[in-house]
């Protein structure tokens, strides 16, 4: 692969990712509307598709206010960090066998986990630099939630890695030729899904924002395009987690008849729709319930999954 082609690929991936994240705001509002028996945004452009553009223009023209009591440097850095980590995490996602920025990276999963962990900094620093009690509370919640859910986010993927004998995402997809990993790794799938929701702090687990008790949580003091970056980073995070789920458990681009790209987009899209459905259907748990659920239910389940998968591999492997 030449350098020019690589750069082109990165640019195309970035553009696709960002426009997908922006378009997702419209998709989410529309779907939420349908699930609540109303129409959702349907005025701007055909079926309201240009709503995301209108929102973007509005955000760009808003006053970009930095509170005088905020820690200026960190305040500006935080949303950029959130955006950058999510976009970097997308580098290892293989859209198809040949189309990925770094899909063959032999530590792909570790790189992804590292990037999502770094994403915590954006939220925590944003809450800290705002110098506002609600923002700080949101940031603290985010730190506790994301750190504890990250513990078994890694563990939940171990079974997949064991089955595929590789950390490379392309290899993991290839290993799903006979059977998607959602079948042998169902527990891993469920735990990774929950961890992914907590990681992107999406609605059942959006305690860092918690509008009804914290104003807007960690981004209470943010306005204009800095808020927009948090916003887009959240949606890009959803796309990232959804494509990770597709890659790791739903067979990635593999599928009959249709071209691989279509399969990948289809599976990712349906996963995203499921994320939105979760938001439409489930209420937010209390904070202690969230931590309890993470440490007392999901972590043991993950460990059990790893143990059982390991035992099964030892039992049935031809060499063992």
């Amino acid at each position: 692969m030449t350098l020019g082609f690589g750069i082109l690929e990165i640019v195309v991936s970035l553009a696709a990712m960002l426009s997908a994240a922006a378009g997702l705001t419209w998709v989410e509002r529309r779907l939420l509307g349908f699930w609540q028996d109303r129409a959702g945004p349907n005025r701007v452009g055909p079926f309201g598709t240009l709503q995301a553009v209108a929102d973007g223009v509005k955000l760009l023209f808003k006053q970009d206010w930095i509170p005088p009591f905020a820690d200026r440097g960190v305040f500006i850095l935080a949303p950029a960090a959130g955006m950058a980590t999510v976009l970097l995490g997308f580098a290892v996602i293989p859209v198809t066998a040949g189309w990925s920025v770094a899909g063959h990276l032999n530590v792909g999963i570790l790189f992804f986990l590292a990037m999502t962990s770094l994403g915590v900094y954006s939220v925590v620093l944003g809450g800290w630099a705002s110098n506002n009690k609600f923002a700080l509370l949101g940031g603290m919640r985010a730190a506790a939630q994301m750190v504890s859910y990250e513990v078994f986010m890694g563990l939940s993927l171990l079974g997949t890695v064991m089955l595929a004998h590789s950390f490379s995402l392309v290899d993991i997809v290839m290993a799903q030729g006979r059977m998607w990993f959602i079948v042998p790794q169902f527990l891993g799938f469920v735990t990774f899904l929950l961890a992914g929701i907590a990681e992107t702090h999406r609605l059942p687990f959006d305690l860092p924002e918690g509008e009804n008790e914290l104003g807007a949580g960690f981004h209470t003091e943010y306005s204009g395009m800095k808020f927009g970056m948090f916003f887009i980073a959240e949606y890009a995070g959803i796309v990232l987690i959804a494509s990770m789920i597709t890659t790791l458990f739903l067979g990635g681009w593999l599928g009959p008849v249709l071209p691989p790209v279509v399969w990948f987009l289809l599976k990712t899209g349906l996963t995203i729709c499921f994320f939105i459905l979760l938001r439409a259907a489930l209420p937010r748990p209390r904070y202690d319930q969230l931590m309890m659920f993470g440490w007392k239910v999901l972590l043991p389940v993950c460990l059990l999954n790893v143990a059982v998968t390991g035992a099964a591999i030892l039992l049935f492997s031809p060499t063992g």
Partner: protein
Amino acid sequence: MLSNVRTLWLTFLHLFHRSETVGYPETKPYMAPRYRARIILSRDPDGAERCVSCNLCAAVCPVDCISLQKTEDQGRWYPEYFRINFSRCIFCGLCEEACPTYAIQLTPDYEMSEYERPNLVYEKEDLLISGTGKYPDYNFYRVAGMAVPGKDKGEAEREDPPVDIHGLLP
């Protein structure tokens, strides 16, 4: 946990329900004939103004949005000006209830937004309509014992001729 899954499923089923939204400018909701919106001043069947500027509407108005001035023409009372400030009006309909001559009436037309606030002050020309509104047959001067051109005292409907109380005849 199972209840969560059930909730997810039931919410998902709403994808196939009809939307409750009424797409407003395209489909207008049904407005009952008695709906209380834009206020008008009606005319009697003969085409004359019904309002006799008794000021009851202005007196009863809880937000003081009605302002009018009486003037007189050959025994008939008219408002010299009649002004309703719709940026204050709360469309309670008390003026309509208070009106003794069915002159002031509320209509189902609610689309009266303006870009500039002064445009919400309606003068008599804006309020007067050419018809009779909800009461097609009523004519105040035909039933009231007032002398106006073409109708002297005692000539109204269901009215006896005036009695000379100083006379001795039965």
